[in-house]
């Protein structure tokens, strides 16, 4: 039996979907190791405690609420100190993070403070003899390693969308906690959060991604992808590096080896050649659709469905058809 501490990620005062995935993973770990309890850390500006309910709904036995104006933005130094203090108390067998920019910044700091093992970016895991073994992509997504962690507490981070949030309701129990260090004294200060694509769903949360490549020819033609994403209602727009290099889309939209790794249910590649570095970031998508006028484009080698055609012809037709299908559905 092992208790689990899980970090619930917040951005701009909102709980992220990855937080529910992380709590789901923590619940599974606690159950797999013989039924420990799950404690979720929820940090933010005063008032953040109001977001605790969703964490209890997904299996947190208690929510440790850390409220301070110094946590209005991500505060890595004070968070790392606080999480290390909790995890080092002897109460916990495991610490769980999301494998996001925030989680992958924070978890190594905590591991180094405690001198414990960290298994990063797991796409699946099991508990064997009280130890975590988990699957982790390496070689740029071309191999999958099974990592075994020894020692306690063992830390791990879970790849976004690798598991879906599962409802496992617990009564809402909250406990106010304080920061291990003065949050205002941290040396690293986030002075501004720039939310990309305001109001649009994040690439790692989106079940559908419409990604555009250089085949779209100009920044303004990304309207075609935006419209198709809107037709789905639950889609985000991504891009290739050729596109972010041109400045047509922000750097944070880039999918691939040096960009984001995504695994949506549906990935629509619009005017994308399918360079190996692009495939590295999206080949784990469940269903892939490619629209490209070159029948020999490598993207067709991994697409489930392809249309060899001009994006300016095919995409508007697809947008209209998706709208019609959804209106009926």
């Amino acid at each position, binding site marked *: 039996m092992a208790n689990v501490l899980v970090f619930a990620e917040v*951005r701009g005062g909102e709980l992220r979907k990855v937080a529910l995935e992380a709590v789901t993973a923590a619940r599974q770990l606690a159950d797999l190791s013989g039924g420990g309890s799950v404690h979720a850390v929820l940090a933010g500006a005063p008032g953040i405690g109001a977001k605790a309910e969703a964490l209890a709904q997904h299996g947190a036995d208690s929510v440790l609420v850390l409220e301070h104006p110094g946590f209005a933005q991500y505060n*890595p130094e004070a968070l*790392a100190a606080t999480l290390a203090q909790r995890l080092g108390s002897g109460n916990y067998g495991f610490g769980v993070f999301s494998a996001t*920019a*925030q989680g992958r910044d924070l978890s*190594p*700091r905590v591991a*180094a403070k405690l001198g*414990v*093992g*960290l298994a*990063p970016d797991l796409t699946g895991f099991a508990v064997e003899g009280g130890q975590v073994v988990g699957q982790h*992509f390496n*070689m*740029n997504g*071309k*191999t999958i*390693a099974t*990592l*075994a*962690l020894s020692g306690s507490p063992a830390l791990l981070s879970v790849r976004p969308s690798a598991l879906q949030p599962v409802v496992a309701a617990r009564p809402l129990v909250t406990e106010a906690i304080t920061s291990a260090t003065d949050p205002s004294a941290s*040396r*690293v*200060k*986030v*002075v*501004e*959060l*720039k939310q990309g694509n305001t109001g649009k769903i994040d690439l*790692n949360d989106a*079940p*559908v991604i419409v990604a555009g490549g250089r085949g779209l020819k100009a920044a303004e033609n990304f309207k075609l992808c935006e419209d198709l994403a809107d037709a*789905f209602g639950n889609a*985000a727009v991504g891009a290739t*590096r050729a596109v972010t290099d041109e400045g047509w889309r922000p*750097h*944070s939209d*880039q999918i691939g*080896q*040096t*960009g*984001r790794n995504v695994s949506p*249910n*549906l990935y629509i590649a619009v005017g994308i050649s399918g360079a*190996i*570095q692009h495939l*590295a970031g999206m080949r784990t998508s469940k269903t892939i*659709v490619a629209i490209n006028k070159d*029948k020999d484009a490598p993207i067709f080698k991994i697409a*489930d*469905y*392809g*249309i*060899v055609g001009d994006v300016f*012809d095919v995409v*508007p037709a*697809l947008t209209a*058809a*998706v709208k019609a*299908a959804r209106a009926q559905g």
Partner: protein
Amino acid sequence: MKIAVCIKRVPVMETKFAIAADGTRVDDAGLKYDVNDFDLWAIEAGLQLKEKNNNVGEVVAISLGPDAAQEQIRKALAMGADRGILLQAGSTPADGLAVARALAAELKDGGYDLILFGRIAIDSMNQMTGPMVAELLDLPCVTNVFRLDITGTTGRAERALEGASEVVEFPLPALLTIDDGLNKERLPSLKGIMAAKKKPLEVKPAQLGEARVAVQKMVLPPERAAGRILGDSAAAVPELVKLLQTEAKVL
């Protein structure tokens, strides 16, 4: 300004990988190696900062890896780094903390104003060594940097999040991990390659500690089967929508 750049020798990824007989690593027969992409951008960042500082200071390329990683350090020197250090290790442990400890031991008394890493090593895909070193050395740390401005002893950086970014301020000395988008690395010139041969490259054993993470098994992911071409114009759209509804069940 004294800058350390930590670089890793990694296989060239445009390769068909096979799993070694022991089932826990890739077979290295026939593999080619290069500097991890993100580390190249970190080297470039270091060189540009030194140039902006009227070339006062030093850029030191440090690698932990096999003896052959001298080749990657020479590449950094050919790009313009001043000297290199190889922390020799037969193989790199899977545990990022073991690596971080060895690097931190080397960096500790180096008097560096900035320590740069790439955001991620694309072989292990651990993305943890930089922040661990920062923690071990008690340095301010900013990860995923794609914009950077250093004025005196204050830094301002923008770091990439999922679909967003954060503007961050920090004091020097500090440790940063560099993301794609900050710059394009320069190619070594012939003159640079000649000069690199004469630059100092110190080789010493890495002080690797205990590892808490081990690779139990390694496999290749299942191949994706090529799918169906449904047509050559918008006329194929109804068929696609039908398949998305009935077969893929995503609509």
